[in-house]
């Protein structure tokens, strides 16, 4: 198992390098000029110097390797410096954002908590809702609960977040006025009142994102439970006289969770992608919103870095899913 994991991790490196190259080359075609918003009174030779300061002006391949050097060597060094107070990076040039004129990773670190709070919370909530629904619909297949559950998951699957999000804003913010429609990121939780406020502003984005997760995962859970409920070992367990609770919640559930856990792992990067839209609706200034503004402002280093980080997430969680599958299911042997 360990050799398999190591092999996959090693194989991921060329994949990621290639993805990074593809994103870089795509961005290379961008028509925009980062100097476009500089006033016309600035003389051309000063503009040229500003371009050089941003790291432009060198050929494409040099800039690509520079980006790689900055991202893979300098940024980790800065991270270690920050962690232990050392001075490894020593003022080397980092990946600079064109719109913020500051290192990309600093901005990303600022935006990370909001995204993580909303996204991670919604994923956890979504999974926690999905699993019982899936288990019970499979156990009582074709019952009223199952029919309703299937319909609701189908609806959750089909209603895009940019509609469900706007709809809950209309209902709960505009009509009822219960919840704030804009996510206030400056809020610091110090006491009970601010905690309640934080909770109130998180409810809608979390529920909108969780709806998607719930729909997907409960369908998988139901299908997986149905596969297992008719197996011979279930009959054996019942014949032994085990209680129904033990049969379903221990024997069947543990076996059904194997594919579901990999699906949960595979869904993590997707939910970050989906957060782009949700953050736009609820005005959460997280990573997704950062990416959109960076794309609109033609901030290529920012777009490159954030997109690449998403790609890293996808590749990483693909490996996690495969390894988990091997660990959990003794029938699967990779070596």
């Amino acid at each position, binding site marked *: 198992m360990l050799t398999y994991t190591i092999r996959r991790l090693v194989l991921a490196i060329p*994949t990621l390098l*290639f*993805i990074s190259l*593809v*994103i870089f080359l*795509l*961005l290379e*075609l*961008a*028509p925009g000029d980062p100097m476009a918003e500089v006033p016309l009174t600035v003389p051309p030779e000063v503009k040229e110097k500003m371009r050089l300061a941003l790291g432009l002006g060198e050929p494409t391949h040099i800039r690509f390797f520079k980006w790689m050097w900055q991202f893979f060597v300098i940024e980790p060094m800065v991270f270690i410096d920050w962690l232990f107070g050392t001075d490894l990076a020593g003022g080397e040039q980092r990946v600079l954002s064109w719109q913020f004129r500051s290192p990309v990773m600093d901005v990303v670190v600022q935006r990370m908590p909001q995204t993580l709070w909303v996204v991670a919370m919604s994923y956890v909530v979504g999974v926690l809702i999905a699993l019982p629904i899936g288990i019970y619909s499979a156990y009582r297949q074709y019952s009223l609960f199952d029919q309703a559950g299937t*319909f609701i998951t*189908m*609806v959750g*699957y*089909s*209603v*895009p977040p*940019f*509609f469900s999000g*706007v*709809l809950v*804003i*209309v209902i709960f913010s*505009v*009509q009822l006025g219960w919840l704030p429609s804009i996510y206030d990121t400056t809020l610091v939780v110090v006491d009970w009142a601010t905690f309640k406020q934080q909770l109130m502003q998180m409810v809608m984005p979390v529920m909108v994102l969780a709806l998607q997760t719930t729909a997907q995962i409960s369908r998988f859970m139901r299908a997986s439970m149905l596969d297992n409920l008719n197996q011979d070992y279930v009959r054996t367990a019942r014949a032994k006289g085990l209680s129904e609770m033990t049969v379903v919640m221990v024997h069947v559930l543990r076996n059904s969770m194997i594919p579901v856990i990999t699906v949960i792992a595979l869904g993590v*990067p997707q939910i970050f*992608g*989906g957060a*782009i*839209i949700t953050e*736009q*609706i609820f005005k959460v200034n997280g990573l997704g919103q950062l*990416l*959109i503004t960076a*794309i*609109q402002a033609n901030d290529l280093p920012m*777009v490159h870095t*954030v*997109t690449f980080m*998403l*790609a890293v997430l*996808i*590749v990483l969680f*693909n490996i996690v899913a495969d390894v988990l599958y091997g660990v959990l299911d003794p029938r699967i042997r990779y070596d």
Partner: protein
Amino acid sequence: MTDAPEPITALTDPEPTAPPHSQWRDVWDQFKTHRGALIGTFIFFVIMAAVFVGPWLWGIDATFIDVRARNQGPSWAHPFGTDQLGRDTLARMMAGGQTSIAVGLTAMLLALGLGSLVGVLAGFFRRLDGPLMRLTDLFLSLPLLPLLLVMVLLFRETLNGAFGPEKGIFILIVVAIGVTSWMPTARIVRGDVLALKEREFILAARSIGTTNYNLITRHILPNVMSPIMVSATLGIANAIITESALSFLGLGFPPDFPTWGRLLNDATVYLQDYPERVFWPGLAISLTVLSINYLGDGLRDALDPRIRGR
């Protein structure tokens, strides 16, 4: 002498009582039993008809501006109300639906074509299998939504110049969605082709000297039609959602060119004053996607021979 022995009745074939069914008749019989799929198909065709035939019956043009009748609520003259420029929302919904469904269908066809091509080539020719599947894996690990946004932003001006603003963005969005959504089809088709390739009828066809091209077009492709059709339905739904998402983020079609996503985006600006305006485009997108998903669900059951027998 003894009489001629009675024929053993168990061994005689009973005469068939019903005329033989074609395969598609069986598929339809199974499809009919899935109530959700039937309703889904019906709703999808109603939406298609409303969107493509409706503009002929409804006299008001989608781009007609009647400033004196702006921001109206529902009335007999304008059942869905009017927008901030006095354009009729019903007419705009129908025009928007045409674009959204057209984008969905074309992007699905492109993705399906690419996916089937890659899948069949990878499954049929062993030498191509490795490289093509690595390519598929690579595409699967790209963060698609950000890349779609980047692609739209980068190539919009160029294509607008070449084909005009409306056709340019249409081509761009269809190609962008098609190029980023062929991978699941390719994987499914490859798996099926790999299994089919070992079957006797392929061996028989090969032994009478069928060329690879004919083998693929006459023997392999008809047998992988069912997974392709299922991913086709899911592809339409996916493409409609992606197009609406792009338009919603303001990176899709230009403002005066309605699509459902664009209408939803325009409506969110007036969310405080006219919250009912977001309802219709959102409902249209959701209902279309829901009906297509049910259609796909029923189709998957109907085309699966293991389920069909029961």
